[in-house]
């Protein structure tokens, strides 16, 4: 049919065979389209927490603005699992810090607190916050990376030499309820959101 037709103004027309091929190709593409989404099988969905969760201190209690000391830190497991082995996983360990007074730690709201992934951005040791006067910073025992408690940005050591986003620790957003209990808001695991554990986050201007 198409072959008999005289060339139209558009130039050439699609022959019947080409049309058939096109249909077959389209059919193939459409058949396999749903499987693209199956790629979601691969990443671990552990982080998709849809509700706020407690800041559960090592002693089992929930962190409270009234009782948590200024210039002090604790290791908190998040997201907490029922499996004690998984809770030991470094990628679930977060440093919950109440800032020192000069950085605004005396206030009784969420701005006085920070929660950073404890996994050092350099080679994944666990850093921790040192409250001693003159230190008041996060330090990694392995290769000496140092982190600013206010922003989570590495300012010294090998982690500081890494290009963004790998020089800023992932952090979780916190909120305080009427009783003073501290909660973790549902995270957004991306470098533009709360960051990716072990890899960092872009610091918002």
């Amino acid at each position, binding site marked *: 049919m198409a072959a008999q037709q005289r060339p139209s103004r558009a130039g050439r027309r699609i022959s019947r065979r080409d049309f058939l091929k096109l249909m077959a190709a389209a059919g193939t593409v459409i058949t396999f389209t749903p499987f693209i989404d199956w*790629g979601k099988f*691969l*990443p*671990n969905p*552990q*982080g998709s927490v849809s509700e706020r969760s407690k800041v559960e201190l090592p002693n089992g209690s929930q962190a409270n603005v009234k009782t948590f000391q200024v210039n002090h830190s604790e290791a908190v497991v998040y997201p907490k699992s029922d499996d004690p*082995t*998984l809770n*030991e*996983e*470094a*990628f*679930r*360990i977060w440093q919950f810090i109440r800032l020192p007074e000069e950085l605004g730690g005396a206030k009784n709201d969420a701005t006085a607190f920070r929660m950073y992934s404890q*996994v050092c951005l350099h*080679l*994944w*040791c*666990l850093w921790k916050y040192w409250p001693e006067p003159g230190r008041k910073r996060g330090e990694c*025992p*392995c*290769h*000496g990376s140092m982190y600013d408690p206010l922003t989570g940005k590495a300012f010294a*050591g*090998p982690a500081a*030499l*890494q*290009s963004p986003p*790998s020089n800023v620790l992932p952090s979780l957003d916190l909120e305080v309820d009427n009783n003073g209990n501290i909660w973790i808001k549902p995270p957004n695991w*991306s*470098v533009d959101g709360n960051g*990716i*554990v*072990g*890899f960092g986050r872009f610091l918002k201007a």
Partner: protein
Amino acid sequence: MWMGMKFTLPTRFVSPLGFLGMLTFITFIILGITGALLMLWYEPILDRAWDSVEHINDVIPYGFHMRNVHYHASNAMVMLALLHMYYQYFSGRYKIRNEILWVTGIILGVLTILEAFTGYDIIFSERAELAISIAASLTNSIPILGPQMRDAFFGAGFHDFVLRFYAFHVFLLPIAMLGLMVVHFPRFLVFDVPMVMAITGAIMLTGGVFPVEMGLKFDPNVPPGITVPEWYLTGLYAFLRTQYDKFVTGVAWPGLFIFTLLIIPFIDRYKKFSWKDRPIITAIGITSLAQIIVTTYWGFYIDPDTTKSLLERLVIDPIFFYLVMVLLVPLSFGFTYMMIKLAKNAEANAKLQPRKPVGKTSINLPEKWIYIVFIALLAFQVYLNIAAYYAVLAGMKNYSLFIIGIIMLVFAGMFHLFRYGRAMAKSAPPRIITAPPKITQPAISPPSAAPPLTAPSKDEKPLATPAAEKSSGTSAAQRQASSQGTKSAPAITKSNDARISTSPSTGSNLSEPRASENNKYQK
């Protein structure tokens, strides 16, 4: 193309250079067997991976042996694959209808290194953790798709890493390698029992002398000691230690290297095959080797001055490093050119003199002595067996592994002796008939049968230097032909040479790979 596959059990010694690929495959099989056995005890779980390996190493009977053979075979496989690649590269066999073999071979090589890498990571020692962390951050550094790829391949957290590396190591990568091997199968398969046994023995012997360490169990609260990756990755590690951008140093440079290897047969436009006739390609090969050696060594080197900070000792000054790498290029290029020139000159000089019959400086063992040596070897085997058994009883695991390695080597020698004796028995006194029957077989397309497609090339092996050609081109060629002719008369074993010399002008370029493949058996 792959229908003409041939499987040979050589009846005499052949150079292992020609069947390094087969030896790589044999080590792959050894790895498959020992790996499957290790799977019975290994637990790919965050807190148990290291402990289960320790259990295999210390408690399970012969677990130490299995683990060491597995580990050293993995190193041997990477090394053999590298040697295989460079041999194919310099002998020029990768082009003209062999491009697919080469490309699949390169992919196989990359998969081999990934396989070895995932293997030493699932022990989950300190070093393994550092390696995983570097691998994950390199994947993450890839523009656009990097973070998604990292999520998809690595999952999130150490638990996923160990489990997934295990899945890759024991199933996904090997199955991909097997699939590629089907395509990669060459036309000639040589299964040389003594050489296979010698390789196996060497692996065990090395395992006995340098038993692989357990390393320290990973603890995120304990600062790791200074560790370097396995030797096939220290080159990459040297680049990473310059602290320059991760993507460039860790992904782009090695990616560029692999890409160059992939396209090299399409770049190589030389009509000739020998490395001497392809100076630029040979120079590129030598340059790459020099770069590999220097970076590999540099990756291992750590400033021994412990008073300096760890970072200072580890970081390599990028300017110094890249300067050396760049300077190395003209140096190695020039060196190669010089060597090719010298080699050609030397060969021309050798041509001018009547060639001495180089062939066969072999020891001619009388039949009686074969039996005596055989019995001595058997006695030695018995002694070694007893020694190995007592070593196991005494708990000297590495010593027993060492002895078993020697047993394998002795077996290799015995098999060779047996082969030799059988060949002698078959061929009575006049040793002319020793020529294996294979010689006639590969001559499916003898050079003379092939019609001269292109203009008949001047010489099959243009070994004469320009100088020699200038002065007396024809006479030199004649002399060469005549000298080879006289030589071929007494010893027909050198039939390949003879064939080439009798038809120096008809041999087309296309027939040359066949000829060189024949060479493999006649060395």
